[in-house]
């Protein structure tokens, strides 16, 4: 781009101008990004080396004490087992989304209706979703009523204890977010040129072969993006369990634990350290994923 002439004078000014221009456009976005993301993160990192309680005007520097405590208390990392539920749920979610996207990419009756129904839950307000599912899991609520239609009477404790509750909650997250994956996959599939299908039909390829050789390569970028988001999402689950159970009955996630350390036990330093640890883990996961699945398409640059 631009002329690469090397003469002096007005051109130099133009060149300087061209160097400055992108920064003019980036000034406001970067200022906002730094103010509202990086300054808080820097604060969080500096707090993680103090014994601050979150309110008191005095902070004392304690070196790496919080990090030592974090890594010498295995129970603080046990909550990551809860993330496994959400991770499994993400696999289910992506698989389902992929299946429905494939099915609905072919011409079917009521295609748009199904598409809308599958996608709509993603658009619903989170607080409303919380209420809908609190009602859903009530003893004698929606789920119990449905089951009694099929002859399974009585009350089940959907949020009663660890395994059941985490399964219920990760089920809610599948219900809520599947639509997004589905629409992303569908978009990717539909952007594959139609000629490819026609050609394969002529070659006598069946649906499965079409999926393997045409659809799968076409959606790889979106798929790997979804996988990153799924993993980092599972590690930082917060909203659904926080609104629905408050982390009781073994549904505590790492972020809820961090919030409790910070706001209930006033250990801002330790909480900051664990937030930093979480951030590092998420960055590692992203980096690993890049390493394993090199894909210039997911890269923005």
């Amino acid at each position: 781009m631009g002329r690469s002439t090397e003469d002096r004078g007005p051109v130099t000014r133009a060149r300087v101008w061209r160097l400055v221009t992108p920064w003019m456009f980036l000034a406001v976005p970067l200022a906002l990004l730094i103010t509202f993301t990086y300054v808080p993160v820097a604060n969080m990192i500096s707090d993680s080396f103090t014994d601050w309680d979150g309110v008191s005007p005095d902070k004392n520097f304690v070196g790496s004490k919080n990090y030592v405590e974090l890594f010498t208390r295995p129970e603080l990392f046990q909550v990551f087992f809860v993330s496994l539920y959400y991770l499994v749920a993400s696999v289910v979610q992506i698989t389902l989304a992929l299946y429905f996207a494939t099915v609905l990419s072919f011409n079917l009756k009521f295609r748009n209706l199904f598409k809308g129904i599958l996608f709509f839950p993603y658009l619903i307000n989170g607080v409303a979703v919380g209420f809908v599912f609190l009602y859903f899991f009530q003893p004698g609520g929606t789920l119990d009523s449905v089951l009694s239609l099929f002859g399974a009477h009585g009350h089940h404790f959907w949020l009663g204890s660890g395994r059941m509750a985490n399964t219920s909650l990760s089920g809610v997250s599948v219900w809520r977010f599947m639509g997004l994956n589905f629409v992303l996959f569908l978009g990717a599939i539909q952007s594959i040129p139609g000629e490819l299908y026609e050609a394969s039909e002529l070659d006598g390829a069946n649906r499965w072969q079409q999926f393997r050789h045409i659809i799968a390569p076409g959606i790889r970028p979106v798929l790997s993006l979804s996988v990153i988001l799924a993993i980092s999402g599972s590690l930082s689950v917060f909203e659904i369990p926080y609104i629905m159970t408050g982390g009781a009955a073994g549904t505590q996630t790492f972020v809820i634990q961090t919030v409790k350390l910070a706001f209930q036990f006033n250990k801002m330093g330790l909480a900051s350290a664990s937030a930093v640890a979480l951030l590092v883990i998420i960055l590692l996961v992203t980096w690993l994923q890049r390493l394993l699945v090199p894909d210039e398409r997911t890269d923005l640059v």
Partner: protein
Amino acid sequence: MTSTLVPPPGAKTRDLSEQDRSAHTRRTVARTLTYVSLVAASVVMLLPLFAVFLTSLKTSRELAQDGGALSLPHNWLNYHNYVTAFRDGKMLSAFWNTSFILLFSITGTVLIGSMAAYAIDRYHFRMRRPVVALFLIGTLVPSVTTQVATFRIINDFGLFDSRWAPILLYTGTDIVSIYIFLQFIRGIPVSLDEAARIDGANSFTIYWRIILPLLKPAIATVVIIKGITVYNDFYIPFLYMPSENLGTISTSLFRFKGPYGAHWEDISAGAILVIVPTLVIFLFLQRFIYNGFTQGATK
């Protein structure tokens, strides 16, 4: 891909009609199974919402008689709970506040996202990669964990308990919109910029006159995605706008629940009230939403 019109070898030797028939049956079975799976999924998606809708039409007495969540209301036109939820939930001012925040934060996001994308795509400067990385890493920070520091910054700007706090926070970091704009800008030929530059347009004119109008489909996408995010967000308005007259949709619904915690029929009505606008907008803008996703997230 090469395609041949010649059937594969071996096909000729088999009875064609039999092959057709078995293929036909198989296809019918597959098709039926597909529909079954779709209907089952639709039921799973709609049932929780439908139960809440039914409950919102019941009187508290009907609920107490415990006909189960799926029993039908006596009176399908019992709008009484909606009146309660709308009035006591202060939904009118909530809709107004939410609209206000939506308007400004969406405008801000579109401008900022498209500017960043323009700079990143059209200019090759030395710090480009780090800048992109900054934006990318920013999305990975779980915002709950940095809340105290963010709060202090908002307060230092004197924006606490005003509608500008969420507007600024929503506008501030939105990698998704930058990503969508980037994808789009790549598709706009550089020759257009070059031609305008030869005509003496400066880069701002190019951005404003050429790039932005051509980004319309991407803008539609961003407006919709951002709109959904802002309309549904709970934590930011909850924390930054505690005043009663500054309730948004989410916070009003949440606060409405407190005193009505025992009245599922009123809470259900409140939830439905909040869901309905989303539904209406979705029905009208379906095409844009899908198209946006289709063209925005993939290339």
